[in-house]
């Protein structure tokens, strides 16, 4: 049974059956049409993929299984994610190291669409996995920021 708390927000997972005991979180990123305006934020911890990059990331993963080196796989993933997330060279600790792996390019908005105590989605959340209210919110945000690209990033809570 899913948790009663309303952290579910706008999420409507495809099934009631849990995949694992890891929680899942879904973030909406509104990528600014220009790099000259917005906020740079950390990539959510344990991000699986975004709705717009999942298929390509799966292809890279299959290639890894078929013998692609891990280094080449990492480079492929970096290239796939590059429109939204880039390796962190922006925020460093006062000891001089960059402890978060990836940060976003400038975004006009970022928002938690929901978080679940268990994992219910085998893949990543897409527009179709939002409640009707969630879809309406997503559509509103899309019209609010014309020219921006919207991403839904699914992250696991380990």
């Amino acid at each position, binding site marked *: 049974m899913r948790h009663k*708390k309303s952290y579910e927000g706008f999420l409507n997972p495809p099934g009631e059956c849990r995949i694992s005991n890891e929680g899942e979180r879904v973030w909406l990123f509104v990528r600014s049409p220009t790099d000259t305006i917005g*906020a740079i934020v950390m990539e959510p911890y344990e991000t699986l993929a975004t709705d717009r990059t999942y298929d390509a990331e799966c292809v890279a993963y299959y290639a890894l299984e078929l013998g692609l080196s891990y280094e080449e796989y990492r480079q492929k993933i970096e290239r796939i994610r590059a429109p939204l997330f880039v390796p962190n*060279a922006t925020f460093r600790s006062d000891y001089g190291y960059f402890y978060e792996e990836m940060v976003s390019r400038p975004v006009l908005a*970022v*928002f*938690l669409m929901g978080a679940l105590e268990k994992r219910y989605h085998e893949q990543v959340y897409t527009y179709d996995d939002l409640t009707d209210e969630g879809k309406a919110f997503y559509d509103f945000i899309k019209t*609010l920021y014309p020219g921006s690209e919207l991403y839904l990033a699914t992250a696991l*809570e380990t």
Partner: protein
Amino acid sequence: MLQEMDAPMQLISKRMVEFPRQCVGREGTQVWMLAYAERLLLDSRIDEYIPLDITTQLLFPIDRFIGLDLTYKQHQERYGELLQRVETEPMLRTNYLTAYELAAVDTGRPYLDISTIEHPQLNRPLMIVPHLYGAFLIGITHDSYSDWHCTTRDLTQHGQAFYERIKTILPSTKLGLLTLRGTEPLVPLVLKSDTDDA
């Protein structure tokens, strides 16, 4: 050139912030609506289920900070106190923060604080806005103003409606309105290739 100057206004299709009519410069101003996870801010009711890592944060250099509606009153009072003390306590003059910045830090918690995170291209300390469910850029202009920061009274009907909407989506949401100097990103994005070339 004109098209370039108008670009910030075109990023947001609905006018949410009523900026003052009188501007004093062209430094730029931006307003962010912040959705805090209040339970995490208060660090209370820790027995309740709160998913891990459900918040994010914003970081910006302290000299960009104009005001946060949640702390503005205390910030101004503290600033006044510090200005008086500067006359009698020379040590304050050598602080690496200005009196305005120091007052912001003194009165910011738990909504904002000075960060230990640094930016390789900036020499001013960063401020951190922690425990956010999210943040939305709701107003941006090339103009700058004297003694103005955004409050709920400065929101248009669209802004008010959006404010009320965001408040209801996730539990214990507390909203804030953050006003910053400039139109540029909160911090410059540094790419690995930039650092490789350095």
